[in-house]
């Protein structure tokens, strides 16, 4: 049973209780159930976190922007083809400092989701992000990117307009920007679609968000030819914030209220805001060259392998 099913069952039990007469008994049983719920939420499995990251009520990018930044102005279009609604961008204030914000937007209702294509960007979206990043560099504004996407959109138009090239160009350009990029993974971070705006100097993750090369379902169906084993895949893929922090892919974890960000949005936004302003303060003392170098070194050093050399032979061959 995963966390959402457990929760539903407990809520049903509480409703049942109201039919009883004894007020004191009801209170004590309620307390017990509440304790059990909290205990369950403290020991989440990887699959539970996948479900929380995709939760219907989880705050989306627009809510975060509204809750964290002031005076946000949205800017549209890639100046070449059309405006992609899966990626929103603009300028806002964080503690009276102008910031360029680029975010992947999930809808709350079905209509909204169809309009923004379930947060799966087309090449236009990446090109819009690139335009806004170059603009930020020109005016020396830090960039904050918010990631919440299942992945790039696998469709005819996206392929014909050069999806791969658009992502590659973003990575190519982001590696050398003179302003700091801070990436926040809000919900799902999937594949190249997430990385295309996620090459930050600092990568932060919310406690219950996930970041992976593809969805657990896709992983199970590619490697094991069985998409029903997605729970197992979620455990094997090391996609939770704690796993990724341990291996040094991300830099910090922002804690969420117990039971997920949707339980207490104001508190979530507060902790996001505190973390972001703390990091931005650090970058104010750094020169442009240092910022470029930091980002280059961060990504240059990621990899897990060994190299055969003189030193490695010590003890192996006698």
């Amino acid at each position, binding site marked *: 049973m995963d966390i959402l099913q457990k929760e539903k069952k407990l809520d049903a039990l509480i409703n049942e209780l109201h039919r009883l007469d004894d007020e004191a008994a009801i209170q004590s049983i309620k307390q017990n159930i509440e304790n059990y719920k909290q205990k369950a939420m403290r020991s989440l499995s990887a699959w539970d976190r996948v479900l929380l990251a995709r939760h219907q009520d989880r705050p989306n990018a627009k809510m975060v922007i509204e809750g964290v930044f002031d005076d946000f102005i949205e800017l549209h279009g890639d100046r070449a083809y059309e405006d992609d609604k899966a990626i929103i961008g603009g300028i806002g204030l964080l503690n009276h400092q102008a910031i360029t914000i680029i975010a992947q937007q999930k809808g709350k209702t079905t209509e909204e989701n169809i309009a923004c294509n379930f947060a799966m960007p087309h090449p236009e979206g990446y090109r819009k992000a690139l335009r806004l990043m170059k603009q930020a560099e020109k005016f020396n504004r830090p960039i904050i990117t918010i990631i919440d996407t299942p992945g790039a959109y696998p469709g005819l138009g996206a392929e014909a307009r050069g999806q791969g*090239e658009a992502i*590659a160009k973003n990575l190519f350009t982001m590696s050398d920007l003179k302003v700091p990029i801070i990436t926040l993974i809000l919900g799902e971070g999937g594949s190249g679609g997430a990385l295309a705006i996620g090459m930050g100097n600092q990568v932060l993750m919310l406690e219950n968000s996930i970041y992976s*090369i593809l969805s657990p379902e896709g992983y199970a169906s590619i490697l094991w030819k069985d998409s029903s084993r997605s729970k197992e895949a979620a455990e094997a893929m090391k996609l939770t914030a704690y796993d990724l922090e341990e291996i040094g892919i991300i830099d910090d974890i922002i804690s969420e209220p117990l039971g997920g960000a949707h339980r207490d949005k104001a508190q979530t936004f507060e902790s996001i805001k505190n973390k972001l302003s703390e990091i931005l303060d650090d970058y104010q003392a750094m020169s442009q060259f240092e910022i470029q170098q930091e980002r280059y070194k961060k990504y240059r050093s990621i990899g*897990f392998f060994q190299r*055969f050399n*003189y030193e490695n032979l010590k003890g192996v*061959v006698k």
Partner: protein
Amino acid sequence: MKREQFKEAFKKKKAFTHALKTYKKKPLHQIKQPDVPKGLYEKCPSCQATLNKSHMFEHMFVCPKCDHHMRIRAIDRIGITVDEHSFVEKGFGYITLNPLFQDHYEQKIVEYKKKTNLDEAYIYGYAEIKGEPLIIGVMDSYFMMGSMGSVVGEKVTKSIEYAIYKKLPLVMFVASGGARMQEGIYSLMQMAKTSSALKRLDQQGLLYISVLTHPTTGGVTASFASLGDIIIAEPKALIGFAGPRVIEQTIKQSLPEGFQRSEFLKDKGMIDKVVHRKDLKDTLSKIIRLHQGGN
């Protein structure tokens, strides 16, 4: 005291030379051909014509009847592209590990190593094409579909850095199924790594030609394959980010004929040129010569 140190150093040296000897590659003709039916003849996958294997190298692994470009081993690719005896391999000794502790991954790697006689799906080194020096990097799609894990990402980055160090043009032959799923998030980050290395190459004003061959898909398309100053493709190669099967599942209809093939992408303005394998050597040498002032 000193004597002991000398002794130790001597031991080390002996061990090193021994390891190097056992490590050295076999000569070209001794390398086993994987996944090809044993015997003298093989069938063209496109027109089913029976072809004599011993003539394949002369035909550059192109079917003489229907012009089908076959998948090709990295070592053969170097053989038909660069001048004879000019290739010097660099970047030996990378060992693939199992970062996410996936089941059966190590065994798979060992199997592929035996089968292909390669360390990983990418080899690079110094070579000459019609006397023009360059750094050449070739992916081998027979090694786990040429997928990009930590080692391939690192070797690609090293080859780019070697080109920067030597101030030579870089030519990369890409054939890959994308990122290696078994290495998970590490594979994804190789996209960022290779792209940022290419940015440095770009800033040095050096030429980078990427040659896309069948198949080029996934994370490789979304990083170094698409970043060439000049992008060349072989005829009818499959090139794209999402695989055709995934697209079909998403849009729930079959794809049009020729979709994601080189000719289609050329029409859409995504690549510079579609070049037949027989003309590739001439084209490459011409482009490199033109970038050196036409001497």
